[in-house]
């Protein structure tokens, strides 16, 4: 190293001796260049910042959505086995002692716990007035602090309870999730009707609680006559398979009374739910955006740097004519590009990190995995790669400029273009198009490489927009819920004052809905555990009444049931059992077996796609213990929704039910997916537009002298603006024509991946979502991006004074 430095010093010495003071002159020229090229530097900073931020954000997102459950489980030291103990069957000491069982590597608890019912809230949001409405059961855990060796709970908002009347809600425990801090809950069945205030929201991927209070509060909140219990959380030396978890459970509970454990949850159940539940569609979707973002950033960064350095070719020529060596010149022009780029990388890292934090917290919420942290390796690697890209591009471009002969370099910027560019110029000049338009149209052909890079950038913007539009409309078609009843009315039947809602409640609610004038049609569904052939005891049956053919579940193949004894089943169930349409599937137990004919395959992500959907009439003979969940109602045309609602609510008052305005289905997931795709699309379109702005601005600056000439011979400002705008028009058209089909292809590639993630084949109406008009509009989006990007430089070209432009060298 020292030898090299010495050699360099010697070289410099020799050069200095040959041309006294050339070093300082060079520095002066470079500095003058920097100030004269302030605009170029600004463009470079802007473009680098934008593409760096986009790349970092995209990469962080890619890392964040990679096996999000496993990441969160590892981060939170998730509970591999969660056991609920009956406090009357085992003492605290006995439960605490289970922590020392063989195989246990960490444990938390015992935490006092109780189950609460029929509490009320003062929550009143537009469309959902829950005031005084008895809410469903909630498992309350007494815990002194969120942290611990197992189930290190992540507070995502507010703080942990510090006083008796404070409560923290678990993320994803509806309907209270999303209620603002300060919302109060009243527990009428607990001694003294206590009222608690929500002071925080926390995430536990191990799902160990619905809500937390301080430990000593649990017994005070337990309704009179209700025994409290203990919750114990364990991690084991080996718990990778169901068999291992069962063995661990046996080891832990050895020596305890038989009925001491009232409930047990294995982490494997949660993991498979997370991997195949509806949320599993998010990772492939965001992954696609992430990859688009990274590629787009690289293209834009490289092309704009290249253009900037190329723009200094003339200056390089002058310096070489003055006696600078090629090496000096290359170093200097590379440095000129590098300084703003480094600033841009730094700024972009800041913006990208801030954006990634926001996006990750959103995504974490959607996936119910807390807040995925920033990946530090990515935080370091992406900026370093960006710097490497910047340096490589700048040095390569400067090297090319440095190798140019002095004469060529001096002529650069005014050099006649390639033969093909000229041929196009000549042909266009012969057309009947207004001259400014034909001049603009020919412009991309004079710099084919730059135009290609720009086209590519716009292509990516169009792909992103097309993809996002497609995914949004696919999601719209892919909602699998009776609660998807936008514009209609929804009735929720829930807990009553004395405990869970009853079958009587649901019968009363159905009757009220039926009797209500204005009801055009209604569907209600109820899910309950039932043994299902090929699935076993864990099976679920969902039966529908009221609606006939009014189905909310997209059908992949076959049709919705038309009467009793027919079944519609999700793809996953078909795959798991090896059954096909037309086969018989038997549900029920012991003497009550119901052989059902499979008539349809549905897109259904509930119960991990392991439920059987059938007409309620099939099970008329079964006495349900589980009540109705919700009723979806369509109103007769012309019926006033508000009047209908208040009248129905009055009728429902005795049945512990509440009627609200129907929302679009998919709820939170769809909302967040929608927000994410809008954000990502905007970001990509913005970066693409930034690329266009930078590129067109550099191009316009390079041609400023020509623009002066055009104006001097009579081109009006408007004609000049039109000329610059049309110079990106053809490029926008091409980009739209390429980008829209590619976006559709990406959609058609990613959607089945999203379907696979939830173990389902996608129904055709989820896949084929693009309307011809929509595609045409998206293709036009390419022109829009190009024109928006070119608007600034075009306006500048129109405004610049002729005399100023002519004076510019």
């Amino acid at each position, binding site marked *: 190293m020292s030898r090299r430095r010495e050699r360099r010093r010697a070289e410099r010495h020799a050069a200095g001796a040959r041309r006294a003071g050339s070093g300082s002159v060079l520095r002066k020229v470079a500095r003058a260049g920097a100030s004269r090229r302030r605009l170029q530097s600004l463009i470079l900073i802007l473009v680098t910042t934008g593409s760096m931020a986009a790349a970092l954000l995209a990469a962080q997102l890619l890392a964040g959505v990679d096996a999000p459950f496993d990441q969160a489980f590892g981060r939170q030291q998730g509970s591999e086995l969660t056991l609920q103990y009956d406090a009357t069957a085992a003492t605290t000491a006995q439960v605490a002692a289970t922590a020392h069982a063989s195989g246990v590597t960490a444990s938390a608890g015992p935490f006092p716990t109780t189950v609460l019912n029929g509490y009320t809230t003062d929550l009143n949001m537009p469309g959902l007035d829950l005031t005084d409405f008895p809410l469903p059961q909630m498992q309350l855990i007494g815990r002194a602090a969120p942290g611990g060796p197992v189930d290190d709970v992540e507070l995502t908002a507010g703080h942990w309870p510090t006083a008796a009347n404070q409560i923290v809600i678990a993320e994803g425990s509806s309907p209270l999730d999303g209620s603002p801090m300060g919302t109060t809950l009243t527990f009428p069945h607990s001694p003294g009707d206590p009222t608690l205030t929500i002071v925080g929201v926390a995430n536990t991927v191990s799902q160990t609680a619905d809500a937390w209070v301080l430990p000593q509060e649990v017994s005070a909140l337990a309704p009179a006559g209700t025994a409290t219990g203990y919750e114990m959380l364990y991690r084991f030396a080996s718990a990778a398979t169901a068999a291992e978890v069962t063995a661990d459970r046996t080891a832990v509970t050895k020596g305890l009374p038989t009925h001491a454990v009232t409930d047990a949850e294995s982490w494997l159940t949660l993991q498979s739910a997370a991997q195949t539940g509806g949320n599993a569609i998010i990772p492939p979707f965001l992954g696609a955006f992430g990859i688009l973002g990274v590629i787009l950033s690289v293209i834009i960064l490289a092309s704009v740097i290249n253009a900037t350095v190329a723009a200094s070719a003339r200056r390089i020529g002058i310096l070489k004519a003055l006696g600078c060596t090629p090496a000096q010149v290359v170093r200097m022009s590379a440095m000129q590009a590098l300084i703003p780029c480094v600033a841009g990388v730094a700024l972009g890292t800041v913006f990208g990190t801030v954006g990634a934090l926001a996006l990750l917290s959103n995504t974490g919420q959607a996936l119910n995995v807390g807040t995925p942290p920033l990946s530090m390796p990515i935080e370091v690697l992406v900026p370093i790669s960006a710097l490497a890209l910047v340096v490589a591009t700048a040095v390569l471009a400067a090297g090319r400029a440095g190798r140019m002969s002095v004469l060529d370099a001096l002529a650069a910027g005014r050099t006649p273009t390639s033969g093909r560019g000229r041929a196009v110029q000549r042909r266009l000049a012969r057309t009947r198009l207004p001259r400014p338009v034909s001049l603009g149209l020919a412009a991309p052909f004079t710099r084919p490489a730059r135009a290609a890079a720009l086209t590519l950038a716009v292509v990516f913007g169009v792909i992103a927009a097309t993809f996002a539009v497609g995914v949004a409309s696919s999601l719209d078609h892919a909602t699998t819920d009776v609660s998807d009843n936008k514009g209609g009315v929804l009735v929720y039947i829930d807990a009553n004052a004395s405990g869970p809602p009853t079958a009587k409640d649901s019968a009363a609610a159905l009757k009220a809905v039926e009797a209500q004038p204005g009801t055009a049609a209604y569907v209600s569904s109820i899910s309950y555990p039932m043994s299902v052939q090929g699935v076993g005891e864990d099976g679920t049956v969902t039966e529908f009444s009221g609606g006939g053919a009014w189905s909310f579940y997209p059908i992949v193949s076959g049709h919705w049931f038309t009467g009793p004894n027919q079944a519609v089943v999700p793809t996953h169930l078909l795959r798991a059992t090896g059954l096909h349409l037309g086969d018989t599937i038997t549900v029920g137990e012991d003497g009550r077996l119901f052989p059902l004919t499979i008539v349809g395959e549905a897109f259904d992500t509930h119960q991990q796609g392991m439920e059987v959907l059938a007409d309620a009439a099939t099970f008329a003979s079964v006495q349900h213990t589980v009540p109705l969940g919700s009723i979806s109602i369509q109103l007769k045309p012309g019926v006033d929704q508000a009047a209908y609602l208040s009248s129905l609510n009055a009728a429902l008052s005795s049945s512990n039910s509440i009627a609200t305005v129907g929302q679009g289905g998919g709820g939170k997931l769809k909302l967040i997916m929608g927000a994410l795709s809008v954000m990502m699309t905007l970001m990509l379109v913005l970066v693409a537009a930034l690329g266009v702005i930078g590129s067109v601005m550099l191009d316009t600056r390079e041609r400023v002298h020509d623009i002066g000439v055009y104006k001097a011979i009579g081109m009006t*400002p408007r004609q000049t603006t039109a000329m610059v705008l049309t110079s990106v028009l053809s490029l926008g058209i091409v980009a739209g024509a390429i980008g829209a089909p590619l976006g559709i292809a990406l959609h058609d590639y990613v959607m089945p991946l999203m379907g696979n993630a939830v173990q389902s084949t996608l129904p055709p109406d989820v896949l084929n979502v693009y309307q011809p008009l929509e595609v045409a509009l998206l293709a036009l989006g390419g022109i829009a991006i190009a024109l928006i990007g070119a608007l600034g430089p075009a306006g500048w070209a129109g405004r610049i004074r002729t005399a100023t432009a002519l004076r510019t060298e």
Partner: protein
Amino acid sequence: MTAPVIEFKQVVKSYENGPPALGPVDLTVSAGEAVAVLGPSGSGKSTLLNLIAALDRPSSGEITVDGVRVERLGEAAGAKYRRARIGMVFQFFNLIDDLCVLDNVLLPAQLAGVGRGEARDRALTLLSALGVDGYAKHYPGRLSGGERQRVAVARALINRPPLLLADEPTGALDTASREDVKELIKDLNEQGQSIVLVTHDEELAATCATREVRLLDGRVVSDRALSAVSR
């Protein structure tokens, strides 16, 4: 005397809070005159020309060219005014390198919306009158300086402007080419073209101008007709 083509009344041009670069100047040029504007570097010659061409606006005073009040024109109106009334020739030709000679010459006509056939006829006529019709399909980069300046003159004249402005038209030319352009300007004026010519070149002024205006520090210090003899 014929009607004035250019009329300057108390025209002053100063750049940001400096002393006036030009003026106050009163000047009247009649149709058919060829005025040579002479003066040392920095004396305001180009400024004068830019004001006539509406490339710049005076700080005060009135400029009338061919009946148009030039100082009142906006950018767009200025462009249309230049199209119709002004032909400009520059020291460094200012041809568009990406366009062939013919397309360069056609440009002002096309911008003005002159029909293609007519514009082409005019362009070819001009090019052959100027002796460069052989280069119609060539690109400016391959032409000599004198040839380029002829093309620039053709481009300046295609819309038949009443006034031709030239800023150092021979400044970038070698002796032979200079003679060429000198003859050209003289011929044009003899055919009735009004010309304002900015130059350092005393001989050029003497050969082809009918009148000589000398500027010093932005003011007219001498204004005299050149006798036919000296021409």
